[in-house]
């Protein structure tokens, strides 16, 4: 039997059995959204609400990420110039503004020493940067160091808010990066930079949107 016929027959039978199984069952109501009161307190509770960037920074640092805050684009460019010195080449995501690209030779993502992205958002609650596949995934994943620009105004208090903000225009893959790649699979000893970037730097742009 062809793959499609297998699948079609399976579909009908699975859905049939599932419907039959649920016929007798009392349907359970969806409990709605989790009330805010259940959002965890602490750095991503009250403090997170008044200072999401601070809470985001705490979280990401706790997971082994680095965070810099930059007052405006001029400060950002200055910092970038300094930061870029230690790298030989760069792979830049589609849509990273020219002004936020380091003056380094471009390389394929698999060869580049540094990847640069612009996050579509961030979550203080989890210390996560939200990345869209629309900028290309390889420069987010293959270089050993990943620099991610994020605007302070895009840092949401909760992960729920950060994901809700993307709901209307979901890319093929939306990703959360919340720390450097790590593993404890070798004898329970933590190593970083296993498959994905071993260094992740969030550069938070505090100034108003240009």
């Amino acid at each position: 039997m062809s793959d499609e016929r297998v699948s079609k027959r399976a579909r009908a039978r699975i859905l049939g059995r599932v419907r039959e199984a649920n016929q007798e069952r009392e349907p359970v109501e969806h409990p709605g959204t989790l009330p805010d009161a259940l959002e965890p307190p602490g750095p991503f509770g009250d403090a997170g609400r008044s200072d999401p960037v601070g809470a985001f920074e705490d979280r990401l640092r706790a997971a082994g990420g680095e965070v810099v805050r930059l007052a405006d684009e001029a400060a950002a460019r200055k910092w970038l110039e300094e930061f870029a010195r230690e790298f030989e080449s760069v792979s830049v995501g589609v849509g990273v503004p020219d002004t936020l690209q380091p003056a380094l030779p471009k390389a394929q993502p698999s060869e580049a020493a540094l990847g640069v992205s612009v996050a579509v958002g961030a979550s203080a609650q989890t210390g996560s940067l939200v990345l869209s596949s629309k900028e290309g995934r390889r420069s987010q994943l293959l270089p050993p160091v990943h620099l991610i620009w994020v605007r302070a105004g895009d840092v949401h208090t909760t992960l729920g808010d950060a994901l809700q903000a993307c709901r209307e225009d979901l890319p093929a893959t939306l990703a959360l990066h919340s720390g450097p790649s790590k593993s404890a699979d070798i004898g329970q000893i933590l190593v970083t930079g296993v498959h994905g970037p071993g260094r992740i730097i969030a550069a938070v742009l505090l100034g108003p949107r240009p």
Partner: protein
Amino acid sequence: MDVHSRDYRARARQIIEETPEVREAVNAATQTFVDNRQKAFADLDGTALSRWAERVKSHALSHLADYLEEAEARLVERGAHVHWAETASDVHQIFECIVREQGVKKAVKAKSMLSEEIGLNPFLESCGVEVFETDLGEYIIQLLGEPPSHIVGPSIHKSLDDTRVIFHERLGTPRDASPERLAEAARDLLRDAFLTADLGISGGNFLVAETGSIALIENEGNIRLSTSVPRIHIALVGIEKVLPKWADLPTFLQVTAKSATGQPVGCFVSMIQGPGGSPGDEPDGPEELHVVLVDNGRSRLLADPEAWEALRCVRCGACLNICPVYRQTGGHAYGYVYSGPIGGILGPGLVGLEETLPLPFASSACGACADVCPVRIPIPDLLHVWRQRAVERGLTSDVERSVLGLLTSTATRPRLFGWAEKAAGLLPAPVLRHLPMLREWSAGREPPRLEGPTFRELWDEGIE
């Protein structure tokens, strides 16, 4: 995967007596998980969270057919191919067609317990596809030719030295290589595989009906790479993985990560809605996305009014970590892809009671698992259901029957100390010798109520 649960007692004995280092490694790893989980929930209203999560999952399961159709429609709109598979052999046929048509020679694979359930790797190899497990833990046990020992940490039973030995033999790293050096060797080899594979294979932690999103949580980045770099991505998703709404996802991601490792969310999360590169409008990403929705016993379990709640499981592993019985042996003793408390209720539900006996008995019924389950699966009650059925169907030994007789007569409250001690009488002697004999577990619980002979008395009477 073949099920070898029948040998549970012999295997447990063998592991404890012949490889005591396994117990040591598993104990250390699970204790770390337990401590981290506890810290992660310290400031939270864990009960309210798990009540909410329980209701969302129960709601999704009670409307499962509609949600599956919704997820399918969203995925198809985005250009994904959706396949349905009733059995392992259906999944094999679907893979065979894709692999043949596309001339796939090399596949990179992210951790998927469902793929273990259906024996995917040996099948793909029989089709001439070279399969690379890319999760470091999975890669280690792939080299060793072993099945995973834990649903979150497949290689937790292996020490640093075990990995040194196998990497020395297979990858030529120095015999005394540091963990960093070992990880680097694996990364270099697997990086090449990522860049040259035609196919990436993943599982799916959640399938969001409203948006058709497949969500995956991880720490290494291998899932992101497996689902981003090769030309084709196939995601294997159990039909029970459905979440109704996009807005449900953030809480489930967090609750799962916290329960599994104590992390806020895991270093990487992928939320996949469709293929990426051409014909899509994105710069890269797979050109083809295939989603295989797999039943493999799930719809039958859903129809079981006494046992269906096992389907809420999010595979966090918290019940394994806290289980005093699992901690003595790790997962291999159980002879089934899902071990520990969840294995005792999924095994009989998905594969059948006869095939997976005595897994429902491989528990001390101390109740710790139910306390940590983030979706409030009443694990001890479900174990009890399967135990009773085993007796009713005449599948149990005299020993199991006699102990179960005691249980059912005296214990309607499975978490009581006395019940737990007696239930432990069903475990193999070496496991019993090492159990922290439930005293720790009963601390802070209701006082012991011992009625009738305890497991020790039964043991003295020559019962194993």
